[in-house]
């Protein structure tokens, strides 16, 4: 279905009470090959945290994203034509585990 150049339209939101970690909800066009690490990098970039990034976890429809976006799409019968809303939360997982995905 998707080639390595495939992209998808997404937007981020968070329920975090700290306004400092809120990005604006404008859509982003991102590669479907992105995983948690890449998404976390984008959120940090949008927050201006490139130097001291905070690790974030991502949820789609309440389910933790543990694979590249592309795999999520295939598993849920979606295509890169979808418009995904990704919720992010500060990661509670240990750093050693985070590095693996």
């Amino acid at each position, binding site marked *: *279905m998707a080639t390595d150049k495939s992209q998808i339209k997404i937007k981020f939101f968070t329920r975090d009470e700290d306004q400092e970690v809120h990005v604006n909800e*404008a859509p982003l*066009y991102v590669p479907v090959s992105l995983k948690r690490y890449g998404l976390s990098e*984008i959120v940090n970039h949008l927050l201006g945290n490139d130097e001291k990034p905070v690790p974030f976890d991502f949820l789609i429809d309440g389910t933790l994203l543990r694979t590249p976006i592309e795999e999520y799409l295939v598993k849920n019968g979606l295509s890169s*034509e979808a*418009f995904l809303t990704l919720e992010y939360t500060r990661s509670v997982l240990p750093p050693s585990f985070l590095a693996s995905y």
Partner: protein
Amino acid sequence: ESGLVEDAVAAPRAIEEARELWRASDLATLELTAGLCEQLRLILEPTLATKLKGDYKTGKRLNMKRIIPYIASEFRKDKIWLRRTKPSKRQYQIMIAVDDSKSMAESHSVELAFQSIALVSKALTQLESGGLSIVKFGETTQVVHPFDRPFTSETGARVFQWFDFLQTRTDVQRLVSQSIGLFETARATGDADLWQLQIIVSDGVCEDHATIQRLVRRAREDKIMLVFVVINGVNSSESILDMSQVSYVPDAAGNMVLKVDKYLDSFPFEFYVVVHDINELPEMLALILRQYFTELASA
């Protein structure tokens, strides 16, 4: 594979439903059609008289090159006058290419897409500017109405039958390259002063801008004018105007570095407008076409 959709293949939408959709879109654009037609007439038809042309027995100015032969022939070769002739009516082949991909439904642009097809096709039919064709694109590109057939309300309904906005890719690259082929074929049937124009109606979300840009340039070299109408039926916070493009570019050390730019900054079509409401379309389409023709005239 870029040919007309097979009559034998069942269209995804029943004709009764398509007629109802056409009626609704026709109604929503009734008051806009005459205005758009007038604007297009002003832009598409040349109003300036052409250059002085010879050779006539009477006229506006003498053709100096004919004077000596005139005298030498003892005033028999008397077609020595130039005239300002009336501009010939330009012939156009205009193709409306409409995005049939799923993102159109996701971004609530379906109604606006149908209204745009109705409005533009009715205005062009009134204008009688030449051939009108409609194609749909997504994963593939298919002709749903060819240049050589007249366009009526029933045609409109039949065209609507082919749109279901379920295609799971938006291959704009393929659209542009196949359109170049379709225009080349169509040109063979037209006369010398034929102008070819494509109006793309889409939510504007597409991958690989660099490749598309090269194809757009090729189309331009082939004298095919491309204008892109980005339709955006959603509320302003989700508008394409605010969308960002995420990419990764190598730095000096060869490491891939994250880059976030405005999506429209790399948009591969030079002549595009963003339309949020059908009432904006006549003004916006006229604006972009006027820009195009102004640039052509100054080139």
